[in-house]
């Protein structure tokens, strides 16, 4: 029994779409950030799988840079969450409606 590359790639897309569903249906901003991390991880695993399949290390270098961007993104995102919580006393995206009023 062998694991074909397309099985690993399909597994990546399962995780990616679970993350996408999380971004679309959740209103808690912390959970939305976690779902974005899930999606980034799925893409990283796709890069590593292709890197293994095509015997090219460019994919693993891309993962290296994506990890840096993800770390920066979550630091700034959580800074935004703290600023939001200080203003609204809530982490719910339904409460953000300064521009609507």
């Amino acid at each position: 029994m062998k694991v074909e590359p397309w099985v690993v790639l399909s597994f990546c897309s399962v995780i990616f779409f679970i993350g996408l569903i999380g971004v679309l249906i959740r209103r808690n901003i912390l959970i939305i950030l976690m779902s974005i991390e899930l999606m980034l991880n799925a893409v990283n695993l796709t890069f590593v799988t292709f890197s293994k399949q095509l015997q090219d290390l460019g994919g693993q270098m891309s993962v290296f840079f994506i990890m840096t961007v993800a770390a920066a993104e979550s630091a700034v995102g959580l800074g935004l969450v703290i600023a939001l919580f200080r203003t609204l006393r809530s982490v719910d995206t339904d409460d953000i409606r300064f521009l609507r009023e």
Partner: protein
Amino acid sequence: MDISPLFFYGLAGLAIACSFWVVFNRNPVSSAFSLVLVFFSFAGIYALLDAHLIATLQILVYAGAIMVLFIFVIMLLNADIPSFDLARSHLFVKCIAGFISVLLFGLFTWVFQKSPNSRALGPFTVEAIEASGGNTQVLSELLFSEYILPFELTSILLLAAIVGAVALAKRKLAGGRF
């Protein structure tokens, strides 16, 4: 690919179950801890795929740094109360999200399965990497030769992120709303 099916399917099943738990759970703290499990199973799959440096970085950066940041913010904000936001989102939005996801997943799987592997293979076979000192050494040599410009640009990105995070999370600026 010559990876162990037992370990791959075990880790993949764990990752899928835990990511469902992340998304459909009411308590942010247990979401965060299942996300840690997802990161660990991803690290296991990276190790199976011979990406040893990436597997280590996954544990250090994701399960170490990013998750500690998440849990720290949850505790700081006292946001570890159950949130019943799933019941509030419209059934229509849920159906559309599920439908689009299943459709696109089917499309992706079909494309991955059918697409011909016609690209020329690169020079980095398992034996070549072993001969030149292992995954970490080969990646480091690439990082400081071919990818030196993106590597240096990363430092500017990190500086901008530090300044941005401090400016956002700081106490009130004079007169400003935040």
